[in-house]
């Protein structure tokens, strides 16, 4: 390289550096937080692929995962769930106190914190943000979380750096609800809110200068159909252990790539630096072809895949054929028999390529804090399945086909979403497993929306394979599923009162654990709930995939976690080894 070329190169680098804002020096009296872990080096851009483009950058209205992946990097919450420890940690609130009855939370805010546009942050921004989340007209998806037993929580400013939240009733682990609730700048959004235009603000086309947040990155540019570029927030309130202001990266780029397969191809080509979650087949492929990359298997994810039978009230719906089959589905011995007939080991091998875990209950073994270790894990047993069916009055023909009491052949269809390859594969395995005990199963794979419509609205299905959970390790987000009045109480939606004794008991246990503040006592209650769920089989639990992630070797501090957003949760600490140039 000639001297002139070198000079040119230096000049080029210099302009690059000028483009990214340098981190601001720490101010006196600024209460920063220190992020634990090894220190990194400044510079570089990290490129992440997404399935589609985000719809919006407005944390109040954007409900989809893709949008959240982007705006969560630009915003911060008061109390945060550390994705690695699964425990809460101080964020914008440097400390908090809980009243003895567990209803009043008093939060002390950090002083000297500034938004990414340099404007100072204080209690007014917190009160304003919660006003938005609780506004019924804005209909924010987060509102549900903040309404406990039908009553919204109340927010009051005590002084410039103290806020008090009051809950209508005690709520276990209430500090967890603050996670992910972005604190928004009142100085930028208040006029839009007063004019009733808040839902339309902060779209992708909003000029970057009008968007500010408290997260590690801020918006730099949006190129429609190609990418969203975030740059360092020079005022970010976290430092590393050497008191250097985070984040390390100059830029974080999101490109919309499409399917997972397309992302794999782009990762192989080097266009993408990180893969958020990879299917087992693609992970095996990467293991073969990309030994140089960091491939991390985090073990069983928190979500669960299951088979659910339609036990909805079908009166007045003209679904007589399904109603007749409900006589089988509602018999717990029938459901237990199905569960006994499932070859979960084969499922883990053939669907998750051994990168997964079989499930017998709703809590994944990955959720170490809450899983009931005493739950039985019976292996596949055709004999037990047939014994249970016999007890329930079923018989077999000479050809081995199952017949019910009225000599009707036992046959039902399983609905799956055609967009989920793993669940479609599970259905094909179940079809064979159940065929062995004489049950004929038809697999119907429908477009995801058409399937949801049948499960949630028309009830025109017999059984379905679905997946739930994975949002948080805590039991409270599961309330929707197990309370008989819950909105995802899939097997029997819209129950006015519990239809069975065990559902009533489940209601009691779930309600009770919600208001129990002591972990040990709460765990006992939740263990009992897990026992009931495993015994009465409202869902036939099948398995859960491992969380599989990948990143290029240069990505430093790559510590993916079991909780969403698996890889980007510590975006402020990610850096590129060998300086920024390597990442370009």
């Amino acid at each position, binding site marked *: 390289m000639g001297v002139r070329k070198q000079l040119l190169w230096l000049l080029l680098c210099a302009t690059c550096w000028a483009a990214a804002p340098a981190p601001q020096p720490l101010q006196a009296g600024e209460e920063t937080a220190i992020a634990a872990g090894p220190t990194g080096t400044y510079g570089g851009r990290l490129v992440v692929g997404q399935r589609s483009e985000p719809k919006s950058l407005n944390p109040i209205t954007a409900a989809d995962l893709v949008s959240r992946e982007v705006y969560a990097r630009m915003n911060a919450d008061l109390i945060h769930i550390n994705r690695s420890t699964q425990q809460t940690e101080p964020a914008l609130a440097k400390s908090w106190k809980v009243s003895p009855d567990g209803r009043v939370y008093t939060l002390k805010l950090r002083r000297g914190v500034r938004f990414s546009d340099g404007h100072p942050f204080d209690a007014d921004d917190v009160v304003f943000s919660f006003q938005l989340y609780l506004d019924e007209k804005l209909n924010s998806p987060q509102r549900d979380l903040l309404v406990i037993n039908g009553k919204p929580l109340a927010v009051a400013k005590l002084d410039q750096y103290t806020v008090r939240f009051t809950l209508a009733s005690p709520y276990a682990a209430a500090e967890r609800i603050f996670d992910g609730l972005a604190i928004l700048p009142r100085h930028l959004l208040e006029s839009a809110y007063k004019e009733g235009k808040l839902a339309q603000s902060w779209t992708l086309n909003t000029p970057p200068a009008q968007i500010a947040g408290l997260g590690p990155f801020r918006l730099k540019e949006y190129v429609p159909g190609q990418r969203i570029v975030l740059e360092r927030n020079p005022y970010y309130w976290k430092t590393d252990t050497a008191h250097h202001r985070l984040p390390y990266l100059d830029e974080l780029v999101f490109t919309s790539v499409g399917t997972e397969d397309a992302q*794999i191809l782009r990762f192989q080509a080097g266009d993408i630096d990180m893969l958020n979650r990879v299917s087992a087949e693609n992970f*095996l*492929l990467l293991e073969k072809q990309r030994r140089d990359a960091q491939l991390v298997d985090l073990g069983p994810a928190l979500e669960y895949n299951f088979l659910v039978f339609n036990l909805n009230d079908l009166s007045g719906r003209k679904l007589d054929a399904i109603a007749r089959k409900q006589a089988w589905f509602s018999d717990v011995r029938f459901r237990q028999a199905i569960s006994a007939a499932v070859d979960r080991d084969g499922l883990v091998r*053939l669907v998750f*390529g051994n990168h997964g875990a079989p499930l017998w209950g709703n809590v994944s073994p990955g959720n170490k804090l809450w899983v009931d270790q005493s739950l039985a894990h019976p292996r596949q047993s055709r004999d037990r399945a047939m014994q249970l069916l016999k007890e329930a009055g079923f018989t077999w023909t000479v050809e081995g086909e199952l017949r019910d009491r009225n000599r009707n052949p036992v046959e039902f269809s399983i609905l799956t979403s055609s967009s989920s390859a793993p669940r479609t594969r599970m259905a094909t395995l179940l079809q*064979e497993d159940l065929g062995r005990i004489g049950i004929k199963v038809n697999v119907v794979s429908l477009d995801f929306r058409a399937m949801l419509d049948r499960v949630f609205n028309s009830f025109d299905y017999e059984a379905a394979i679905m997946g739930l959970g994975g949002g948080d390790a805590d039991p409270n987000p599961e309330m929707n599923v197990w309370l008989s009045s819950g909105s995802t109480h899939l097997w029997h939606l819209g129950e006015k009162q519990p239809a069975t004794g065990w559902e009533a008991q489940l209601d009691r246990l779930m309600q009770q654990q919600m208001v129990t503040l002591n972990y040990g006592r709460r765990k006992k209650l939740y263990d009992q709930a897990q026992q009931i769920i495993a015994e009465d089989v409202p869902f036939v639990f099948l398995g859960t995939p491992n969380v599989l992630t990948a990143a290029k070797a240069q990505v430093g501090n790559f510590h993916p976690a079991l909780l969403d957003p698996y890889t980007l949760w510590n975006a402020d600490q990610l850096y590129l080894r060998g300086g920024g140039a390597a990442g370009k």
Partner: protein
Amino acid sequence: MSRRLWLLALLLVAIHLAAVLAGFVSPYDPTAQDREHPYAPPVHLHWRDAGGLHLRPFVFAQTSTDLYSYADDRSAIYPLRFLVHGSPYSVLGVIHSNLHFAGVDDPATLHLLGTDGFGRDVLARLLYGGQISLLAGLLATAISLLAGALVGGLSGFYGGWADESLMGCSELFLALPWLYLLFAVRAFLPLHLGPGQAFLLLIAIIGMIGWARPARLVRGLVLSGKTRNYVLAARGFGASDTYLLRRHILPETAGLLLTQSALLIPQYIAAEASLSFFGLGVSEPTPSWGNMLSVLQQYNVLVSYWWLLAPAVALLVTSVTYGLIASALQQRLESATA
């Protein structure tokens, strides 16, 4: 030229015969899952080992070294055995048997084209899938040619408002984006439809949509045919419409229909394959060439397991054979009329 036609026809018969006799030819049941052998590569037939040449080919047992990777266990050889008893099957629903052409003893396997992700034998699925795909082609072609000949014949023979309305209708059918139409149709089907029923319904739909082109061709022939001197002469002698159509005019179209069928059959086999590819055709576990190909949508399968491309090869060979026959027939037809 004629010899080539015979050879092609022979190849075609062989393909169809293999599909019909799928149960006998393939050693395994197409839906049986061997969960210990997912994505096993094709088994090699060996003729010689350390001991020298064997008269009868043999295989080694495949042992799984890691998930989806296999090695031959060379400690024992398993000679191919002919006419063995295995899983039961039926030929055309008439002959029931469990006799298979070849097989090997456990624990060796005779997956000559490997297995898919569920450990199902690809050869068996290819042959049984051929039954569905080839039958779909034949049936749908029969339906559309029948409808086409009927509509085209009537329209050409009678002319006037019947001709205009029928041909207007055919134009509409030609203009329809029928792939989307089929997507819509599948969404309306009830869940309780078995794979067989769904299949028949789809054939009916493919066939019904395809009648327009042959109808227009037949109409053209009939139109010119009905003004020929011998037709006019027969009419002068008092022949009825049905007699004229049956005796003089429709036989004229036989050559055309034959060529059309050779063109349409592969087209409809491909149509069935593409519908199954999109998940609209026969559903699991029943194999068809299309739904076997649909796993290749996944990148890792495409690059890792080449033997799953077998249905694509079968589809190609069948289509090319039909296509060559069509052009040979066309040439014959032209030389006959010239």
